């Protein structure tokens, strides 16, 4: 398909923008002006609409296909939340209005949402306070580690390392490293959770924090949690909870009660805001009492008269990690979602997500290897090792599923399982959809046995077949240059 630039015709115009109704001379010297306009496309409005409509049809989304992408929680995004974020009273609200005199009073509705959403997240996680500023999950991780660093620094203790299990998301070690820590990896044991013995050996006075995801990326709950927390405490290391998988445990346990000091949540996972093809998300961070002084500013507070205001007076704060209050439009959608579901609904979310995962697992575990055969939480990890005997890789299975109308599961993550296939169905999928997907997976397994060659050509139903990633690196073509 052509690029929009290849559809451009000199002189063609799109939208008619506002015109000038004043007589005024622009007093910018010509030396400071642009010599020739940027080569943006010259296309009609219909050209643009048709181009992007065509592009959209070259995508799989949750609304078009089952999307069991492990670890990503591709659940249905309620339309009601989209409508809420588009309300003029939110969409047109300038972030600096609270700074004007009478300021906080000009944005009471928005401040209340930030305040109330944080309060709801506190109750859901058992944390003492939340900042809504982080603009993505990884951004929340970085904020959390910065808070941990500020805490240790305030006590004059120079700790240098952060412990991360090998089953963690790549963002965990990257976030810790970018905040200035060295990263120590601890292996998982045969039960698929962090090896307690090796952890004890690694943990020392230099340890600033331990980052855990529970259930972890294998979808398994770590029964040693309490012991890990106690051990960390004994070395004055803080406990970090990666909330990427909170959707498995709503109403069943809370990071705060388990003794975690920091938790980040991905609103675009557990709380159903759309992933947007890779953002925008939101990654609010909750903390225990002792980290409250270090939270970013500004903070929203409720005054005794019931009004809301921004509070900047926190000398130990790590400062600003977003220009304002976080991805407000995303927070708003998550807030609407929590209001709609309520206590009972959120509990049911986790119950159903876990049931759906176990149901699929039970259907697939004979045809595919299941390295950790125990009750899973919201997701589970298979291995294509049986199929590998015929030369069929996890990647081939993923591509074959595309031809059968399903978005593939996550493949090759977590790294600790060879040829891994990580499946997260989410609670919004019906039994019929799960049955159809299981049927497709079983059929692919049969083809892998009988005619493995047939899978290596997949996908054949998509606008392009498998793409040459090596060539992409070699070509280094990141922007269109005509006749290049």
């Amino acid at each position: 398909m052509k690029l929009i630039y290849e559809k451009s015709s000199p002189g063609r115009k799109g939208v008619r923008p506002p015109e000038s109704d004043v007589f005024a001379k622009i007093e910018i010297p010509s030396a400071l002006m642009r010599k020739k306009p940027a080569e943006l496309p010259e296309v009609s409005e219909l050209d643009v609409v048709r181009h992007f409509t065509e592009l959209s049809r070259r995508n799989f989304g949750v609304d078009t296909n089952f999307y069991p992408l492990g670890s990503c929680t591709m659940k249905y995004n309620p339309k009601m939340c989209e409508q809420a974020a588009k309300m003029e009273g939110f969409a047109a609200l300038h972030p600096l209005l609270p700074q004007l005199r009478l300021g906080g009073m000009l944005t009471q509705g928005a401040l209340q949402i930030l305040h109330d959403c944080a309060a709801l997240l506190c109750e859901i996680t058992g944390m003492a306070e939340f900042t809504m500023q982080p603009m993505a999950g990884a951004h929340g991780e970085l904020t959390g580690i910065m808070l941990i660093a500020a805490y240790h620094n305030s006590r004059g203790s120079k700790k240098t390392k952060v412990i991360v299990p090998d089953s963690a998301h790549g963002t965990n070690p990257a976030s810790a490293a970018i905040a200035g820590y060295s990263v120590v990896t601890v292996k998982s044991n045969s039960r698929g959770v962090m090896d307690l013995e090796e952890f004890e050996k690694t943990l020392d006075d230099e340890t600033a924090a331990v980052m855990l995801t529970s259930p972890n990326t294998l979808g398994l709950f770590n029964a040693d949690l309490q012991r890990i927390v106690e051990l960390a405490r004994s070395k004055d290391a803080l406990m970090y909870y990666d909330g990427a998988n909170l959707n498995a445990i709503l109403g069943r346990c809370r990071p705060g009660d388990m003794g975690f000091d920091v938790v980040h949540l991905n609103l675009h996972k557990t709380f159903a805001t759309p992933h947007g093809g890779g953002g925008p998300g939101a990654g609010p961070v909750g903390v225990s009492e002792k980290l409250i002084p270090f939270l970013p500013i500004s903070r929203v507070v409720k005054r005794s008269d019931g009004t809301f205001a921004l509070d900047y007076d926190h000398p130990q704060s790590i400062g600003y990690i977003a220009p304002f209050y976080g991805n407000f439009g995303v927070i708003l959608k998550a807030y609407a979602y929590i209001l709609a579901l309520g206590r009972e609904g959120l509990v049911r979310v986790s119950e159903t997500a876990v049931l759906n995962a176990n149901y699929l697992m039970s259907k697939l575990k004979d045809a595919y290897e299941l390295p950790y055969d125990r009750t899973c939480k919201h997701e589970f990890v298979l291995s294509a090792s049986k199929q590998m005997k015929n030369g069929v890789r996890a990647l081939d299975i993923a591509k074959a599923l595309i031809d059968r109308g399903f978005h593939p599961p996550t493949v090759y993550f977590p790294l600790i399982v060879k040829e891994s296939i990580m499946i997260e169905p989410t609670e919004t999928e019906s039994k019929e959809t799960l049955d159809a997907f299981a049927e497709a997976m079983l059929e692919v397994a049969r083809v892998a046995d009988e005619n493995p060659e047939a899978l290596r050509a997949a996908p054949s139903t998509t606008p392009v077949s498998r793409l040459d990633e090596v060539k992409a690196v070699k070509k280094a073509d990141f922007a269109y240059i005509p006749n290049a």
Partner: protein
Amino acid sequence: MPYIPHTEEDLNEMLEAVGASSLDDLFADIPASLSPRSFDLPKGKPEHEVLRTLRGLAAKNATQLVNFVGGGFYDHFIPAAVDPIVSRSEFYTAYTPYQPETSQGTLQAIYEYQTAICRLVEMDVSNASLYDGGTALYEASMMAVRATGRKKIIVDQGVSPIYRVMLESYTSNLGLQFEQIPISGGVTDRKKIKDALGSDIAAVIVQNPNFFGCVDDFSDVSKMAKEAGAMVICSVYPLSLGLIKPPGAMGADIVTGEGQSLGLPLSFGGPYLGFMAARADNARRMPGRIVGATEDTQGRRGFVLTLQTREQHIRREKATSNICSNEALCALSALVYMCLLGKGGLQQVARVCAEKAAYTRKRLSQIPGVNIKYPAPTFNEFAVELPRDAGTVIGDLIEKGFAAGFPLGRYYEGMERSMLVAVTEKRTKEEIGRLAEALEEVLS
């Protein structure tokens, strides 16, 4: 239960299939000692009630004020076609495009976005976007630190104070040092920059137009920096580039900025769009996603996420950044906006902004006691000096229906009487006239 399709019958069949007698069975691995101490949340509500609650809250926000507040975030016209396109759920319900065959829509759009950004700022390579203009500036600083092996950065105080405090926050544990250079006459002080430059400087950060709306040409700063072996990072207001000289033509090494002005609503501070572009030789030092063109097995053009060996899911703690998303949907909005306006339209919007701002600047300067703060040329925002505290004046003007400007004293000591006024193409001659009258009345 909304959004959960299971019937009682489904639940029973599924429980039986997994060999569990109840849903509680599935959570038996969570020790009883970990049961929540509380889970006291309100009861769920029908969507009609939720939306009614939110409409009530939306009404408590003063979006009816006529807006002259900018500060890097602007009330621009958004073409009607932007929303229906980015609201296509094939775009917004998709994940990061790891499976290229099912994501050519998103991938091609990002490639087209990267192209548009490169053309707008006149650089070679753009990434797929970052969270916002502030985090983009921080990531650019880290790029310069990695590229030069130096740990000190010069920051012009004309750079957004919002971004400058973000830079300090992010790097407080990293041993970086920022040297802030005060402005002179509203623009960058060349002499002070020259004096501060040395063999320990990784980069000089400037902004165009700067926080006071003043337009500059940093070619001379680039030259000085180059001689000292430092990089130049320029943060820009992308819409202004419809009219003013692009940073690529000034010798900048890295260009960043906030893309909100390109078709994104103000939305009380986010989601926004951080963009970043650089010279080709710095491509591999960039953080975040980058989309590249390639071919499929049949020789057809297609697009993939590329140079992934820089990224956290491969490199873990050795990655160039921990970022693992971009603001894909916001980048799509910006792309669609730039396509709808096109080559001539972006130029026209920038020109109309500048004309209306010039008109407002002149009109306000005629009010007794009001002076234009800096003589330097401005794009669509400028500072005025008032005869009394700007915060109080702005408060009085709110009563008259205007968000008249931003009180600079909030960020700059000694500027208590200064107000920053932004004028977009959406403001009319009539609104500008009423603002001037109201200001005159308030001051008299």
